[in-house]
């Protein structure tokens, strides 16, 4: 199906474990983004990418790693999960630097 998908939709993990959240888009959009959404903070940008192999930090990048070897995929890895990384994570893509299209989100709980 066309669009932007995220997997898994729900994930429970333990402190210290590595977790990878997947994001896939079928539009061949150049730009892709990872946000986290927490009560009281709205959406905060973690990392973004302007094209394959080009990534840059957002507001809250510490503890996260991204890669973009293919245009359509933009995985987000938590190298050693902490409780403070419990959140809802959204991936988004855009063709140009305007309208962003969001995935359905991944709800991550770190115990």
């Amino acid at each position: 199906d066309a669009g932007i998908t995220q997997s898994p939709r729900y994930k429970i993990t333990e402190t210290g474990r590595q977790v990878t959240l997947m994001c896939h888009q079928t539009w061949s959009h150049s730009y892709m983004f990872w946000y986290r959404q927490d009560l009281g903070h709205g959406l905060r940008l973690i990392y973004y990418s302007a094209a394959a192999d080009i990534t840059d930090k957002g507001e809250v990048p510490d503890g996260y790693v991204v890669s973009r070897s293919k245009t359509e995929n933009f995985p987000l890895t938590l190298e050693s999960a902490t409780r403070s990384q419990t959140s809802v994570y959204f991936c988004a893509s855009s063709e140009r630097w305007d309208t962003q299209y969001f995935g359905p989100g991944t709800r991550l709980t770190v115990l």
Partner: protein
Amino acid sequence: SQQGEEDPQALSIQEGENATMNCSYKTSINNLQWYRQNSGRGLVHLILIRSNEREKHSGRLRVTLDTSKKSSSLLITASRAADTASYFCATGLDRGSTLGRLYFGRGTQLTVWP
């Protein structure tokens, strides 16, 4: 912070009434966008207004932009229960190094009662 700030944080109205939400921001922008988020879902783009535009319409939505006051408003006319959601403004800055990024506010929670 360069993010937009929505006002009010929460708004509760009856079906058929109009809903107005405001957004203020701090720096020069290239565009301002409004998004809707239904509970448990991703954000959905509603409307984009560029810095050289003052007003834009889309169906029951009307957006205004006042760059001198660094503010925008979103008006939803004849609200329906299905409009119940959180509404976010997002600003795209007018700087080359940040092109592509959006800065989101914390949102306005709109509840429309039948």
